[in-house]
């Protein structure tokens, strides 16, 4: 079987030269001291390819406009098989990419790999670092949830505060300071159409320069015989890629990347926080207030980038052993300490979550499957103290029959007649008449019909806020336009999952003035008492 393959390879080589080029690439001679410390560049390229691959997969099911972005991402996460994994790989891949690029830079810095004639290689590398950060910045907006929106508002405000170029940056980012459709379109285009080809170009240039000047030798290498890139160094690169991929895949599979509520520009309670790799900047900004603010947001980061680009022109001495590069080590150590301290402070001072509807999902949540009518029935069941006389499933014997046993044999009409006039329907019964109106009795009957020995215990766990909220829901006849658990009409939007789409404050204000908050809505305003408003919103927010 070897011969036909060799024939094809020879044919291809003669026509394209690719096999020879690959062979030459792999046969590259590298210094004897090369080893594990040089694997980071290869891993960074691998992670870039993973980002491109998963990015295209996400884009296939993603609509890049503020109107649709959030819902299409939700669709990817909740309705497409493996969608969550693909997004996890893209999210954590971005973070790992920053780590690996930083390690690559630190390695090159420590070993003096930027010295003559490799200054250009270093500069292209700094460019690639900035591109990596630009991906993080632009990609952050694309889920269009509160986190994305408010994070980007802060970033664009910072850009606007830059001396001289601020107004121009604002115009470039679109929308005159507000984050909206224009800013979104520009961030999306940067993230998916501008940055990737530029990155490819710079990676190609970077690798070309590495090959042109050779891998940086350590002092003393010239006395030792050189080795070939393949297979020893390729093996080390591959093992490093495998380790990185194993970490990435574990994170993507095990750690859920949140999708918060739909971006809400009117939410006054949201506290934006950047991704972990920008936390040090975030914290620096907190230390600089007033006129100093622009120093923290623009001047210091600008100086840091300038310092990086100037490194090869400041340190122009001959190559020395890494163990004697104490100044370089000191700088790296100081930077690491500063970064860690700032990031740790930011993490430690993280404010607590706003007291949103906190539902205890650890207990049985079968009650969430009940319709609002049945849930209101639970409220009447408790209000009328039915359990005082009736057992629900196995338990102490009570005067009345076990409702999990009998109700399933009766229909609603019989029950309602029985509630009104127990003595007429069942002569001799001790049960008193229930003083509720027809609609309320309907609710009670609906709940009892649902009751069976299997769900009885779980139904008893229905929290009071939910049963009380359902009463408000029923009293205002919300079901005539909305659906909850597929019950009701679909004239208005279904209310399950509301907490994932809207903030609590938005919903509360929406009740009072629907036309203002969602123009075109046919919903009439509701003037609920603050108690009812709280109960209803809490109930709706608990529905998944």
């Amino acid at each position, binding site marked *: 079987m070897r011969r036909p393959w060799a024939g094809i390879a020879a044919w291809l080589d003669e026509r394209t030269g690719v096999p020879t080029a690959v062979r030459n690439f792999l046969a590259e001679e590298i210094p004897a001291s090369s080893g594990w410390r040089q694997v980071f560049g290869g891993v960074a390229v691998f992670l870039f390819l993973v980002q491109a691959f998963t990015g295209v997969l996400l884009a296939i099911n993603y609509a890049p406009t503020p109107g649709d972005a959030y*819902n*299409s991402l*939700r*669709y990817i996460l909740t*309705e497409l*098989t493996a969608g969550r994994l693909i997004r996890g790989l893209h999210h954590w891949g971005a973070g790992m990419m920053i780590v690996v690029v930083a390690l690559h830079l630190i390695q090159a810095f420590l070993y003096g790999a930027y010295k003559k004639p490799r200054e250009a290689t270093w500069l292209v590398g700094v460019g690639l670092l900035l591109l990596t950060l630009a991906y993080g910045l632009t990609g952050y907006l694309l889920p269009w949830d509160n986190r994305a929106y408010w994070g980007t508002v802060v970033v664009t405000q910072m850009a606007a505060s830059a001396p001289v170029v601020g107004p121009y940056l604002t115009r470039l980012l679109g929308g005159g300071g507000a984050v909206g459709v224009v800013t979104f379109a520009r961030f999306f285009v940067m993230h998916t159409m501008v940055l990737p080809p530029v990155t490819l170009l710079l990676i190609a240039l970077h690798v070309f320069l590495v090959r042109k000047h050779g891998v940086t030798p350590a002092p003393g290498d010239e006395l030792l015989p*050189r*080795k070939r890139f393949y297979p020893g160094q390729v093996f080390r690169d591959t093992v490093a890629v495998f380790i990185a991929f194993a970490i990435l895949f574990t994170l993507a599979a095990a750690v859920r990347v949140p999708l918060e509520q739909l971006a809400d520009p009117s939410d006054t309670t949201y506290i934006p926080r950047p991704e972990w790799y920008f936390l040090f900047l975030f914290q620096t900004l907190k230390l600089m207030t007033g006129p100093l603010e622009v120093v923290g947001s623009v001047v210091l980061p600008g100086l840091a980038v300038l310092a990086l680009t100037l490194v090869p022109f400041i340190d122009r001495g001959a190559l020395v052993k890494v163990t004697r590069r104490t100044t370089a080590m000191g700088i790296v150590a100081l930077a690491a300490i500063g970064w860690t301290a700032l990031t740790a402070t930011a993490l430690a001072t993280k404010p607590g979550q706003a007291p949103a509807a906190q539902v205890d999902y650890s207990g049985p949540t079968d009650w969430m499957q009940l319709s609002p009518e049945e849930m209101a029935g639970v409220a009447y069941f408790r209000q009328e103290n039915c359990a005082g006389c009736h057992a629900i499933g196995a338990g102490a014997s009570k005067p009345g029959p076990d409702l999990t046993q009998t109700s399933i044999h009766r229909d609603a009409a019989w029950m309602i007649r029985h509630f009104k006039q127990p003595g007429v329907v069942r002569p001799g019964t001790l049960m008193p008449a229930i003083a509720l109106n027809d609609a309320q009795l309907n609710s009670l009957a609906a709940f009892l019909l649902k009751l069976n020995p299997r769900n009885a215990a779980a139904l008893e766990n229905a929290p009071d806020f939910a049963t009380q909220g359902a009463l408000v829901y029923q009293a205002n006849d919300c079901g005539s336009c909305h659906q909850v658990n597929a019950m009701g009409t679909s004239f208005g939007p279904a209310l399950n999952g509301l907490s994932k789409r809207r903030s609590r404050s938005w919903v509360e204000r929406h009740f009072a003035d629907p036309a203002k908050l969602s123009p075109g809505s046919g919903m009439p305003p509701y003037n609920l008492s603050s108690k009812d408003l709280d109960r209803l919103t809490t109930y709706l927010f608990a529905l998944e």
Partner: protein
Amino acid sequence: MSRQSESEGPTRRGFYAGAIYAIGGIVGAALGAPALIYLFFSPKARKAGEWVEAGDVTSLAPHQPVEMVFRRNRVDGWKVVSEKGTAWVVKDAGQGVTAFSPQCTHLGCAYHWDDAKDQFVCPCHNSLFSLDGKVLAGPAPRGLDRYETRVEGGKLLLGGLRPPSGSQA
């Protein structure tokens, strides 16, 4: 031999190459498999087919096809779109009602009822269908598709689409 500072005997070289291909294969499979699943598995169904009210059938004349227009909800990716739907509805001599999908089974053109010919006529490639949806002429591969139907209180309710019974799809 001079450039082989590392002991790169044939065994070591073989091990390196094997490990490179094996790891490459594992990583490729771990990325490729989820991608294929993501691309080819159909999205989780959000709703079972629901019945849509098409209109009143009490006043329909028997054997006179009528094009009924109604609104229905369709799941389109991450959206549920409310759109116009139509059906050609034929009442038989008794209480039976048949509702045909408005698309020709050949290439999906919209056909119409031709009173003079007493046939459904597709203008694209001249497929002809009888009152009960059977192919009379033309390239159509099977009779007209039908909606599941139900009549409640004189109102026609339409369910899912299915090919004509007994046809070779």
